[in-house]
């Protein structure tokens, strides 16, 4: 399944729904560009929903990290929602799980943004 990236607004939080493969040459660059564009457009509260991501590689993980550092380094917030077991395991292996604020309930995640 190819990657798809769509966005929607929930209050003042921008939810990025990612689906499919987030890998080098497919979804990784799409995800990076989407977050970059959202941030450039003034969105400062970004929630990335990974619930439909069935495959991610080190490039995809790297883009999550780069997006996180870009957004948080300039005063924004970026959080993750609905990790699949696969993504969860990879974030554990790479010791990134504690770097990100991770939620499994969208409403609570949206409320968690200050």
């Amino acid at each position, binding site marked *: 399944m190819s990657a798809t990236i769509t966005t929607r607004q929930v209050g003042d939080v921008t939810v990025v729904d990612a689906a499919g493969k987030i890998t080098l040459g497919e979804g990784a660059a799409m995800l990076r560009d989407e977050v970059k564009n959202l941030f450039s457009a003034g969105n400062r509260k970004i929630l990335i929903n990974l619930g439909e991501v069935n495959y991610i*590689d*080190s490039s995809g993980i790297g883009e999550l990290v780069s997006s996180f550092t870009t957004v948080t380094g300039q005063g924004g917030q970026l959080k993750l929602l609905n990790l699949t077991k*696969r993504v969860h395991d990879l974030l554990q*292996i790479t010791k990134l799980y504690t*770097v990100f604020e991770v939620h499994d309930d969208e409403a609570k995640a949206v409320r968690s943004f200050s």
Partner: protein
Amino acid sequence: MPGTTDTFLESNLDSVDKAEALCVDEAKLLGLDEDACMDLGLAVREAMVNAVAHGNQYDASKQVRLVLDARPDSLRITIVDQGQGFDLNRVPDPTQGDNLMRGSGRGLLLIQTFVDEFTVKKSAAGGAEVTLVKYSISD
């Protein structure tokens, strides 16, 4: 089924997908379950990306050699590029210090996590030769 196949692939991302699919198909024949096949597929993907992007640097004049050695108890995958090779001991640990927040450098960690054996050496021509081994019955 047991046997060896030797394939030469172009230095592009299509080859990464092709190599992953070939290895996963072989792993299924070996009887690996779905999770193990996905683990192996990811490891192959990471090794192929290293070969195509870092080793051959997408140079169309260079190839990546993929050798699948299917044995009754294991699948041995050797990937050889035409780059400069690398020393595994000199690769920074992506989980430590400032490396943790880098946007790259996690591929080798994932390979080592998802296969039973992983070795790196210089090929006769000087490029990187990496071998990934997955046993059909893991501890």
